[in-house]
């Protein structure tokens, strides 16, 4: 049943967040969201609001991540951890198909892994944009190709966005135009290069509850079942003030002026050598990145040699095998691999998908074991624009 979109924001008392989670579960959704696991905030099943990292925050810097008590009972008083939602749409490991020998031939059946209907609780502005970026990679690519698993999983998502009121130490969403506020999807066309994105519900946390905006018919159905009251103007204003404060406190800043051309024209910049001296080519940045989409497949058989399958796994442009063909490796040096990753993310991505590949979430900075900071690297290239390495 579809009802008209709520014209005005509603108010959800914190005591009723469990009702929202319960309604989603009753509607057949697996609710997933931020949880505390092994001293990090990661995404996993949420059965009730008490599964959330209430009262915790994360202190992040280059190569550094620590949890700390906030001193209040905020439900979403942290930013993003090592997981991103892409693991639900583009799983780290996925069987694509099974093959079976039958007589003198074989048959291939596409994997019938059916993604569940999932409700993502706590999707940040940068992450909403990251999903929109991956949509461009995996859905109707070049008018021809769609990843079947991604399409099914994406179709079954219910997105509950949460605005950030805390700015992380490595965050730079304000530079990339992806947060901390959650834009109304109706306004998304005003920023066409950022990619279209949509939410079902968007929450802004106050001390005693959430201002709730409705972004879809499915979201409208859900709040109708909860019977929420309208948010008071002062509640809306307080939410806006908190999000604006987070925007002011952003940990990092990146000048994106002419970024695509800046990087394309500085392929031989000496900074690539300098960063290669520090980079371990460990792939962490690509694993935590919410938009990185590279993968490899492995064709494997069982011991009978009668059954084979193709398994797809996340791969990384930092892996030594990544660009190898018979007779050579197109990117043997770490310098070339780092340059490929950074210029793809911040430059070629515009050529390929008409959007930035970076959403400013800061994960690659935090989870880099040697603390390489993309904003610092790009700023260094800009500061010495046009400099060339000595051959």
């Amino acid at each position: 049943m579809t009802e008209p979109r709520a014209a005005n924001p509603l108010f959800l008392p914190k005591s009723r967040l469990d009702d929202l989670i319960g309604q989603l579960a009753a509607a057949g959704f697996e609710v997933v969201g931020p949880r505390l696991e092994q001293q990090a905030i990661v995404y996993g099943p949420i059965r009730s609001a008490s599964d959330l990292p209430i009262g915790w925050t994360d202190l992040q810097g280059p190569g550094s991540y620590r949890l700390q008590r906030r001193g209040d009972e905020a439900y979403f008083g942290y930013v993003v951890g090592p997981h991103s939602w892409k693991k639900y749409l583009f799983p780290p490991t996925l069987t694509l198909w099974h093959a079976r020998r039958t007589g003198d031939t074989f048959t291939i059946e596409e994997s019938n892994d059916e993604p569940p209907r999932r409700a993502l609780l706590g999707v940040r502005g940068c992450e909403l944009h990251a999903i929109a970026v991956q949509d461009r990679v995996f859905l109707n690519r070049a008018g021809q190709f769609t990843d079947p698993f991604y399409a099914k999983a994406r179709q079954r998502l219910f997105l509950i966005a949460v605005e950030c009121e805390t700015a992380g130490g490595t965050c730079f969403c304000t530079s990339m135009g992806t947060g901390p506020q959650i834009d109304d999807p109706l306004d998304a066309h005003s920023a066409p290069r950022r990619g279209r994105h949509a939410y079902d519900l968007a929450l802004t946390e106050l001390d005693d509850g959430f201002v709730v905006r409705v972004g879809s018919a499915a979201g409208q159905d859900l709040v109708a079942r909860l019977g929420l009251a309208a948010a008071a103007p002062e509640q809306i204003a307080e939410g806006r003030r908190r999000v604006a404060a987070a925007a002011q406190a952003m940990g990092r800043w990146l000048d994106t002026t002419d970024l695509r051309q800046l990087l394309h024209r500085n392929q031989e910049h000496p900074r690539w050598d300098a960063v290669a001296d520090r980079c371990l080519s460990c792939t962490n940045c690509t694993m935590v990145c919410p938009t990185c989409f590279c993968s490899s497949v492995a064709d494997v058989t069982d011991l009978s040699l009668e059954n084979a399958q193709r398994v797809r796994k996340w791969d990384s442009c930092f892996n030594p095998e990544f660009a190898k063909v018979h007779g050579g490796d197109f990117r043997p040096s770490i310098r070339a691999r780092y340059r490929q990753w950074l210029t793809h993310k911040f430059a070629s991505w515009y050529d390929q998908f008409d959007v930035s590949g970076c959403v400013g979430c800061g994960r690659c900075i935090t989870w880099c074991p040697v603390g390489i900071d993309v904003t610092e690297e790009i700023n260094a290239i800009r500061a010495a624009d046009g400099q060339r390495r000595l051959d």
Partner: protein
Amino acid sequence: MEGPRACPTPVKPAVVRVRDYRRETHDTFTLVLDPPATGGAAFRPGQFNMLYVFGVGEAPISLSGDPGEGGGWVHTIRAVGAVTRALARLRPGDVLGLRGPYGSSWPLENARGRDVVLVSGGIGLAPLRPVLYHLRRHRAEYGKIALLYGARSPADALYLDELRAWRAAGELQVLLTVDRGDPSWTESLGLVTALFDRADFAPDRAVGLICGPEIMMRFTQREFAKRGVADERLYVSLERNMHCAVGFCGHCQLGPSFVCMDGPVFRYDRIRTFFEIREA
């Protein structure tokens, strides 16, 4: 260059049967395959298929047969890795998996009415052979045609009997060279670029199609440039690590291009910037 066309099987291969097997040289062989029942037998010269050997893996292999024949799909393959060695063990009646055809193709439309110069090295002749079939079939629509082909040795040269038959028929100029000859070799010795002085074409109306090792393609572009054939009229077929063939896996990127989707055939001026960057 002409763009890709829709492929019905982005992920799952079709199972096809080997119709014919032919040994070409000491390390190359040709498979003729039944085209899949769905998807049709049409391909455009320059495109490739992904061939899967049960339980072993998949490899991108260019189509090297006659695009107008409507018969089997022909693949000439060099046995160098696990998959291509397994492909080399297939014989008529055996089955394999196939996805494709994928990728862009040589500019046969744009080349109409022009001289066509094909320059290739080693196995790089395989993706150009469909062009030769097409040009012969539509001979009157094109100007002068020259094939410059280099191989390491006479034993490494592909399709020699066929090329010599075409030369004897007088339909195209065929210039052959090898790095190291043997007593039976009566053609040229040296690099493929050395053949340019004998190639018969008018630079102002020529189109160059190049496929071979990257170093050979770079020097070939210089030969064309010296004679005044602009980069806008040169086309190269690039090799990269293609896994998925549909732009998802990311391995084959060269600057902004996905070689599997945007290539493998590129107009040279459009790929030049990144092609000339070392380790791009």
